[in-house]
């Protein structure tokens, strides 16, 4: 097995941990992982493709079992991924995990927390995380429900109201502008929802 194959297996396991954050593995999440595997094996010979797909799918099954038995640890998985080398693996893991986070049109606090934890271990900057999250939110097929805005902005009880307000102001401006300049109609509607939620939740810090 090459480093790339090992990395891809680890990425699937990490993404699964995100998927199980809310204690459920939704069909939409399963579909995203399967599509990702499909994409990663595209262009290979039929024999290699089948072999790899099988190995990823076995990894998927094993991971589901180990997550259910509380036997999977995000730190260990990330450190193993980092040990394999290129940063592209880390970005792949984060991008797939964020796609999983937004797959069910909910942005659950546990998922957000784990995403930031993951990014920290994988040494990916908050700026990059926010960019990937924004892209993923804009890529949703429906208007999101239950969005943990405070989690997305990393607002915790130690943050002062002034600092929290600054973070909300910056995010408010971004989503407000996207209500008119995002590429598609659905993206503009999603931006409107993000704007409304950001504004409502942010009011308590003004």
């Amino acid at each position, binding site marked *: 097995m090459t480093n790339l194959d090992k990395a891809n297996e680890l990425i699937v396991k990490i993404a699964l941990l995100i998927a199980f954050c809310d204690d459920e593995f939704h069909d939409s999440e399963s579909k995203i992982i399967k599509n990702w595997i499909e994409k990663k094996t595209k262009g290979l010979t039929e024999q290699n493709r089948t072999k790899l797909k099988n190995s990823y799918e076995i990894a998927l099954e094993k991971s589901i079992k180990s997550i259910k038995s509380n036997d999977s640890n995000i730190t260990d998985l990330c450190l193993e991924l980092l040990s394999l080398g*290129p*940063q*592209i693996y880390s*970005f792949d893991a984060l991008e797939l995990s964020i796609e999983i986070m937004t797959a069910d049109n909910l942005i659950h606090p546990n998922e957000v927390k784990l995403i930031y934890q993951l990014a920290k271990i994988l040494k990916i900057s908050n700026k*990059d995380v926010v*960019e990937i999250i*924004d*892209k993923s939110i*804009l*890529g949703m097929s429906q208007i999101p429900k239950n969005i943990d805005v405070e989690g997305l902005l990393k607002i915790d009880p130690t943050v002062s109201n002034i600092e929290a307000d600054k973070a909300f*102001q910056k995010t*408010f*401006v*971004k989503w*407000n*502008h*996207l*209500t*008119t*300049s*995002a*590429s598609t*109609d659905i*993206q*503009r509607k999603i931006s*409107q929802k993000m*704007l409304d939620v950001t*504004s*409502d939740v*942010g*009011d308590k810090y*003004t």
Partner: protein
Amino acid sequence: MGAFIGIDLGTTYSLITHFDDSGRPKIIEDEESNKMTPSCVWFNENSIEVGKEARIQLGFPGVAGRFKREMGTDYIFNFDGNQYTPTDLSSEILKKLYKSAIIKIGKVSEAVITVPANFSSEARVETKKAAKLAGIETVMLADEPTAAALYYAFEKGGSLNGNYAVYDLGGGTFDISIVNIKEFEVKVLSTDGIARLGGDDFDQILQDIVKKKYHEATSEELEEEDFTKTEAEEYKKSLSKRDVQIRLNKKNYLVTKEEFSEAISSSVKKTERVCKSALAESGLKSSDLKEVFLVGGSTRIPSVQEAVKNVFNMPPTSTINVDEAVALGASIYASKKGDPAKLTDDQLDKINKIKVQDVTPRYFGIIAEEYDSKRRKKILINSNIIPKNTKRPCADTKSYFTTEDDQTGVSCEITSSMIDSTATEMATIVWKGSLGPLPKGRTKGQQIDVMFKFDTDGIMFASFIDVSTGIKKSIKLSDIEEN
């Protein structure tokens, strides 16, 4: 002599004005003698009613209102098996207004239609299309708060000198502009807004309050036609002054001023955030402002005025008619931008003093390919060339390079966006084309210069140039952007 008209094509009401021969902006009343024509269209059997009659019917089948908010979207209105776009409906309003103008002043030389500062590129294009459908041949667009600032400068007779904010909360949109005015010279420093926030939302909120009270009292649902948005709008006006009793099915429902203020507070706070953002973009502090001018009917609401006071640390000024400022400013703008040979001596005397320094309303850039070293692959990015709020006229050139050997063409996509981001999702593609054919057999890395230029009227020119051969693609973007 020519006639110069200004049109405030509003979400709930529209107005038309002209710059008269003596050099004064004046409202032109519609055929029913209304200064403000409701932006409503009623498909009534074989006829189309526009304005007051249609507004009375709003909420009933066959009546369209508040369609400005859908300009530039895929939204379709269906009436009696026929489909209408927001552009079609807007053109009906413009037809009515334009007809009134022709009856009153004859042939029109130049028309300016105002649009919200935060209006999307598509919505701006559709507004121009609506004007063409209505038979208005020469039309320019102007940002609503810029037109209002121009009117304030004009009306104050050259007495203004300093930095000012124009807070414009209308029926459907909110706009804020930070401007510098020196006598009759208006320089826009920054502009921002919220595309979907205005009196219409407050009417909806009042409807919701009443529906809830009705349900609590009767355990029944209140139907839309029992308390329409038009009725809510009328009660909302009273709520600016006093508590109201709303009579429904022989019973009164009390809505207090405080209750209403609380219900709209979340929306009003959004305007505060946008004001802070516009102020920051202008590079000023609230203490640098001399006054805050109010524009738009929703600024009559006391809690809105209170919010303005909070954010700018000063009470706002509303000495002029807040409903008419944008439309009146638009006719001044039309005269300023029109052919001077068509102005009377009195008009020229007034117009020559006026200067408007506008800014670019958004970022403008192109889609480019870039190697992402973190992801080890080529990605598409939005590469901005002209920043938002750049003083017009302006020009800038950026160099790009071909990415393939033997590349015989370059895809050219011009973007507009409200934020400075490289993410393609954050930008709208406003023009698509290609540069080529380019010579075969060249290695990658051939320099392609992209030049963007805005003239004083806001017309944008773009050129894509293959530097080694001089092969060029030039575009005038007057049809996709505001002027």
